[in-house]
């Protein structure tokens, strides 16, 4: 474990170096602990793959004091179990314009791509990049495909996509360079709701193919 300054109002609590479930379990354990046991001056927490970004108010604490308090914490580490959210997906066709390309790249039939993509229980390692955007872990290596050489300027909300070794869902319309294989009607982000994101770090996602999509 180590702490590093991230500017004058935040510090990074690094709990590992790699992307794996054990490291993320640790991140979630510290995240849960700090939500239940508030440290003076801590304002906001952002859990990520292998670290926790801790925002603080410098008039109430300082970096060295907070870093020491974090190092001395006794945190019960356990396997994290989050909610599981089922995401219905219409794969291929107009909703998934890159499905055929992904299949060709992976040297699989499009139906096999769908099956392999819908099989795992994906962990949400973090939410960020865009509102409600889940970074998912657990993609089958046979589906690793490079990002588009030219990112699209507009991707519809709900697009399910693969980029490199990751898969995810674009919650809002915007630009993006991942290959789109399907779309869900499930709203992943709603600013009128509290919390606004449908899935959170530590949750799990299972993609459920909708019949008759192809």
């Amino acid at each position, binding site marked *: 474990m180590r702490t590093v300054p991230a500017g*004058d109002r935040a510090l990074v609590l690094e709990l590992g170096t*790699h992307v794996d479930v054990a490291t993320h379990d640790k991140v979630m354990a510290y995240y849960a602990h700090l939500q239940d046991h508030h440290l003076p001056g801590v304002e906001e927490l952002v859990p990520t*793959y292998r670290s926790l*970004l801790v925002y603080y108010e410098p008039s109430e604490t300082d970096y060295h004091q907070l870093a020491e308090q974090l190092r001395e914490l006794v945190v019960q580490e356990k396997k994290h179990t989050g909610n599981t959210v089922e995401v219905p997906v219409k794969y291929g066709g107009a909703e998934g314009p890159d499905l055929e390309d992904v299949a060709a790249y992976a040297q699989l039939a499009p139906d096999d791509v769908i099956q392999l993509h819908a099989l795992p229980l994906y962990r949400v390692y973090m939410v960020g990049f865009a509102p409600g955007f889940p970074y998912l872990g657990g993609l089958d290596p046979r589906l690793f495909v490079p990002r588009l050489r030219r990112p699209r300027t507009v991707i519809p909300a709900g697009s399910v996509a693969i980029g490199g070794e990751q898969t995810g869902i674009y919650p809002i319309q*915007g630009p993006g360079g991942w290959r789109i294989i399907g779309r869900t009607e499930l709203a992943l982000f709603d600013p009128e709701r509290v919390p606004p994101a449908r899935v959170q*770090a530590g949750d799990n996602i299972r993609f459920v193919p909708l019949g008759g999509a192809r």
Partner: protein
Amino acid sequence: MGWEVIEGGLHTTVQDLGRKGLRRYGVPRGGAADTLSFQRANFMVGNSPTDAALECTAWGPTLRALTAQLVAVDGASPSLYLDGQDMTGIKSFFVSRGQVLRIGAITGGFRSYLAVAGGFCVPPVLGSRSTYLGAGFGGYRGRRLRAGDCLKVGSARRRRPRPIPLAHPIEGDGLRVIRGPQCEGLTAAGLSSLFEQSFTVTNESDRMGCRLQGQPLEHTQGADIVSDGVPEGSLQVPGDGQPIIILADGQPTGGYTKPVVIITADLPRAAQLAPGAAVSFGEVSLAEAHQALGRLRHHLRCCQDQPEGSGRFYAVHCQHRTYQVYVEEVQVPPACGRHSPDYGE
């Protein structure tokens, strides 16, 4: 109560101080990019620091007052015309019903803030009135202002501007930074190059990030890191070695090397970097950063604590022209140093 938008300007949005505690859901702070100028403008018209104002970028809007209002402008200086009369350089003035306020080219920076007594009224979304263009919510219908929009204004009893210190508490030339979280992500040569050169701000700069151009910074092992949290003010260095300053609407997480983060006290200046501007960076300690933040907050408290002006506005007709004159007696509070109202003409 309110304003009709005759022209939206280049990039005008309703902003306040932004959102708190939502980064874990992918929602950035948002709010005014330059929170210092934003708050100063609010204080001049007697608002609270959380009231909403307009953030005008590069070229401001043209607005017709539907009711009489006290207004204030702070930040980079725009050309200002009230019913065609040049008001450029005047910080706070009174606009009568039906008058047209034209905010033109913004110089000496990138962003000007127009505050009105009572604040702009838009429905809060996720605890803030700020416009978040990235997801199209907040502010005025989640977008920039355009012709035909109608802006409501809250009720305000204030009819006199509050004088505030003229000068911004600007310290030094470059932007001060704290090392980390990934300064080892640049080679020793890359890191010294970051501190030794002067960068130029490119045209591709918005509320998310200010893109810089200079001698490319050399990475130790490529630009990509395991994605982690990205604080406002981070200097993000992607594969081409050209840094991006993360501003108010910047993504809360990201996967590029962040060798340094700009100190909070210098974020208002970072937000004022216009395309073509030169910028350099200097390293300071955390203690120096916190002291600078303390001085900035003291300045803001001084602005907020100024008593309401005791003077009055007069319309003076002289040689076929009408001038707005504000007259008041001024006392200089010793704690806050020099202050002189600049209500001109």
